[in-house]
C-alpha cells in the first residue's frame, strides 16, 4: 500500500523547493552583476595569508608585548607582497625591493575614549640585510639612538628598529606615549634573542672616524650604476672631511674583480679619468671625477672603496684602513 503524505509535509516540501529555486535565481543574477569594488584582476595564490584577519576574536600576535594599560583598537592585520600597498600605498616598493615577506600590524588604545593610541608594525623581511636596508633608508636624521638592539632609534612619537630579519615601527598618536612605545620595543627584542653574525657586512667597516648611525644598505642602482647592488655605505669624519666608504659582497672573488672592472668602465664613460695610485693596495683604481676622487678595489669576494671624496689624502687613508679591515 502506498504510504500517504499529509498536507503539512507536502506544503513544507513545496516551500523548500521554492526556496531553493529562489536561491538559485538570486545566485544566478548576482554572479552576472559587475561589482567594480571587488578585485578586477584575480590575485595569484599567496603563500602568506593575505588580507587582514578582521574578526575581533582573533588573538593578537602582540598580546605578549603590550601592558595592561593598552587595549586593542582594532583587529590584527596581515599583509603579503600582493597586498602591502593596501596598507602603505606608495611606500610598498621600498619594502618589496628589499625582500619583504609579510607585515603584521595592530593598533592599541591607552585609556578611555581611544584618543591616545599607537600602532605596531612588524615587517618580516627575507633576511637581516633586508631589514637593515629598510631601516637605514628611512632613518630620521633627528632620531636618537636607543639601547635596545644594535639598530634602533626613537623620535618624539615613535620607535624604529631592525632586529634580525624583522623591521619594526611603533608609532604613537601623541608624544606622551613614547615610554609605552619603548617598553613594547624592549619586550619585542627581549623575546627574540639573536644568534651572532646576523647583521651581515656591518662589522667590516673600520671603527676609527665611523658614524655608526650612518651605515646604510643600498639595494639597487648604487651610485647611479644599475649593475651595482647590495652595497653598504658608511660615513666617516676625518679632520674637516666627510667621507663615504662602501663595501659590496659579491658571489665570488671573480665576480668581485669583474664588478670592479665594470664599475671602472662606468665611471670612465661618465667623465672620469684614471689617475696614478699612491696606495699599496693590489689592483686599486683611483679615478678623478670632476673635482672628486673615487678609490676602489676588490679583495676576496668584496668590492670596496671610498666614494666621491673631496679630500684625496683623507680618502686614501680611509681606503687603506678599509682594505686592512676586510677579511
Amino acid at each position, binding site marked *: 500500500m*502506498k504510504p500517504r503524505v499529509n498536507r503539512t509535509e507536502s506544503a513544507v516540501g513545496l516551500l523548500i523547493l521554492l526556496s*531553493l529555486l529562489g536561491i538559485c535565481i538570486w545566485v544566478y543574477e548576482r554572479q552576472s552583476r559587475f*561589482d*567594480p*569594488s571587488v578585485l578586477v584582476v584575480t590575485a595569484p595564490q599567496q603563500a602568506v595569508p593575505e588580507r587582514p584577519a578582521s574578526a575581533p576574536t582573533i588573538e593578537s600576535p602582540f598580546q605578549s608585548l603590550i601592558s595592561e594599560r593598552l587595549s586593542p583598537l582594532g583587529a590584527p592585520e596581515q599583509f603579503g607582497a600582493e597586498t602591502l*600597498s593596501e596598507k602603505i600605498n*606608495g611606500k610598498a*616598493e621600498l619594502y618589496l625591493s628589499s625582500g619583504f615577506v609579510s607585515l603584521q600590524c595592530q593598533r592599541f588604545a591607552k585609556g578611555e575614549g581611544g584618543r591616545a593610541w599607537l600602532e605596531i608594525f612588524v615587517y618580516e623581511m627575507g633576511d637581516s640585510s633586508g631589514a637593515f636596508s629598510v631601516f637605514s633608508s628611512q632613518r630620521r*636624521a633627528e632620531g636618537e639612538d636607543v639601547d635596545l638592539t644594535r639598530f634602533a632609534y626613537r623620535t618624539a612619537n615613535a620607535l624604529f628598529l631592525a632586529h634580525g630579519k624583522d623591521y619594526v615601527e611603533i*608609532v604613537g598618536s601623541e608624544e606622551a606615549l613614547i615610554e609605552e612605545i619603548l617598553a613594547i620595543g624592549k619586550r619585542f627584542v627581549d623575546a627574540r634573542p639573536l644568534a651572532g653574525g646576523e647583521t651581515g657586512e656591518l662589522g667590516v667597516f673600520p671603527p676609527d672616524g665611523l658614524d655608526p648611525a650612518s651605515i646604510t644598505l643600498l639595494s639597487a642602482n648604487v651610485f647611479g650604476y644599475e649593475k651595482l647592488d647590495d652595497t653598504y655605505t658608511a660615513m666617516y669624519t676625518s679632520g674637516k672631511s666627510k667621507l663615504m666608504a662602501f663595501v659590496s659582497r659579491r658571489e665570488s672573488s671573480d665576480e668581485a674583480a669583474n664588478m670592479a672592472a665594470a664599475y671602472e668602465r662606468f665611471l670612465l664613460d661618465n667623465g672620469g679619468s684614471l689617475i696614478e695610485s699612491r696606495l699599496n693596495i693590489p689592483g686599486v683604481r683611483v679615478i678623478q671625477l670632476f673635482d672628486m676622487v673615487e678609490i676602489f678595489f676588490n679583495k676576496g669576494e668584496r668590492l670596496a672603496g671610498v666614494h666621491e671624496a673631496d679630500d684625496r689624502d683623507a680618502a686614501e687613508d680611509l681606503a687603506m684602513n678599509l682594505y686592512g679591515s676586510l677579511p
Partner: protein
Amino acid sequence: MTSSSGEKDFSRREFLVRSAKAGAAVALAGGVSAWLFDPEGPRAPSASESDLVTLPDFSVSGLDRKLSIIQGADRVKSLDVALKALGGIEAFVKRGDRVLVKVNAAFATPAILSATTNPDLLAEVCRRCLKAGAASVVVTDNPINDPESCFSLTGLREAAHSAGARVILPRAGFFRPTTVAGGSLIKDWPLLHTPFQGVTRLISIAPVKDHNRSGASMIMKNWYGLLGGRRNIFHQDIHNTIKELAMMVKPTLVILDGTTTMMTNGPTGGSLSDLKATNTLIVSADQVAADAVGATLLGKTVSDLPFILKAVEAGVGTADVESLRPVRASAV
C-alpha cells in the same frame, strides 16, 4: 510493513523509487548549477557600453586662473585670507549648491602626522560652504586602509560632522566604470561615483607630502582616492597616472595645505621628525599651479616632478605660477 507506532512504512520498492527521484533531483540541480556557473565572473563593462561614467566639469567659468599663496601657521586664518583674496567662498559656492569635498583620508593615522587632510581645515571649509548657502556638503574618499578606521582615527569624520557636513564612506555599489578621455591608463576603471550624484561643486583638500614613488603627493595625486579596484597597479606608471587623474577631474577649488609638510618617508610618514613647518596654504582653481607651488615646499622644482609637466602638456593647467598673478599675503 508496519512500524511500531502503527503508521504504514514505505515498502522496499517505494523507498528505492523515492531515493531514485531524490537523487535525480539533486543531480538535476547540480547539473543546472554547473551549467549556469560562470567561472570567470562578470567583466567590467567595456567602453562601448552606455553605462561608462565621467565626472562633470565643476569649475566656475571666469575663476579658473585664481591663485592665492598665504603664509601662516594657523590654517583657519590662512584660509580666511586666501579666500578673501579670491573673492570669498561665495565666488565659488552659491546658494543651493551641493558641494563634495574630496579629502585625503588615505591612512588610519593620527592628524599630527600630517599624512591626511587636516581636520580643522576640513571643518572650516565645510562651515564656510554651508554659510555661503550650500544646500549640502558631503565629504568622501576611498582610502588605502579601511574607510571606517581612516575617517575616525584621522579626526575627519568628527570634523565634518561638527561642521554640519555628511561623510560618505565608499561601498561596493558606489563605483561605476570610467574612462579618461585622451588617456591610455585609466580605462573602464571603477570610479567612486555615487557620492557625486547631484553634486554641483567639487573642492579638494590635500596635504603636501613626500611620496616614495611619485616624489610628491599633493592635489593631483589626491584624485587617486576616487579610484577603486586594484589601483596599486597604477604605481608602475605613476606620473602618467597622476596626469590622467588630473585630466579626469575639473574641480571648483583646490586647497593645498603646506602648513606642515611631510618632507621625508612619505606618503605614510610615521614620525614627527618627518615633518617641517612650512606655514603655507595654497588655494587655487588651477590644480597644476597649486602643485607647482607645493613642490617648492618640498625643496623641489616642477622639473623634479614629471607629472606636473605632463599635466601642463595635457592642458590641465599651468605650472607658470606667476602667469596667474598669484595673491601672496600673510595671515600672521
